[in-house]
């Protein structure tokens, strides 16, 4: 199965890179842009019995390595 993990800074944590990009977009005339957040995507294959098992395993990976839950949240997508 294909796993896709998206990691973002939590809502309460100032995303300075997102802020800088937002400012640059405003500078280009895209004045209606707000709330820019920069994250990362991590994709990989995972062998698991089913989607539920895969999701549980990938969540464990997020908690232990892929995200630092002090500052980051994550979303997991599993596709066959």
């Amino acid at each position, binding site marked *: 199965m294909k796993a896709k993990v998206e990691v973002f800074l939590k809502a309460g944590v*100032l995303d300075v890179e997102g802020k800088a990009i937002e400012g640059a977009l405003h500078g280009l005339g895209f004045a209606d842009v707000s709330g820019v957040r920069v994250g990362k995507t991590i994709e990989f294959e995972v062998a698991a019995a089913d989607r539920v098992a895969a999701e549980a395993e990938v969540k464990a990976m997020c908690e232990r390595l892929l995200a630092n839950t*002090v500052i980051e949240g994550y979303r997991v997508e599993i596709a066959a």
Partner: protein
Amino acid sequence: MKAAVVVFPGSICDRDCKVAIERSTGAHVDMVWHAESELPKGLDLIVLPGGFSYGDYLRCGAMAALSPVMRAVAAEAERGTAVVGICNGFQVLCEARILPGALLRNAALKYVCKAVDLDIVNGQTRFTAAYGDRREATMTVGNGEGNFFADEATLDRLEGEGQVVFRYRQNPNGSARAIAGIVNGRGNVLGIMPHPDRAFEAELGSADGAILFQSALASA
């Protein structure tokens, strides 16, 4: 007195730390490669140096926190041995959950490299006792991700328990409550963003960092 400096792939200040500790304290300093699962016996001080361990892949310090030597470092920290994480070493200690909080990108998105004046907030720790009545120190920062973050409850606890050890007079990177260095609850693990290893002789602009190493080894 016996100290060890851990060397990760991408460590930069490992040699600086060795020389700084030797010249400040006369201690014997072993260099320990990250792949070792055991540390030398009878250590009085373990230093995690600055640099860009594992190329800062994923997050600063994230990969180093999982290296074999860190299990041994965590065990020594648990036993009460003095551990100092400087700059990237501080990031590694946070990633290993040996210290609370995390280090974010600097608020101005810039790498900051300059001398900074620090308040010694807690002069009673084993890392600051040798400063005596002095309540200020000058060291150099060199970081791009030195912006200390923890949630408000954690920050309140750190302040309340005397775990905030160093504070910037002028915050160079946006750190929460201008925090430059903290200790764990037991007081034997210090994480510090400025470099005592770049401030151990007057010729370097400041010798204040030497006192930190002397302090750490004074009880040895």
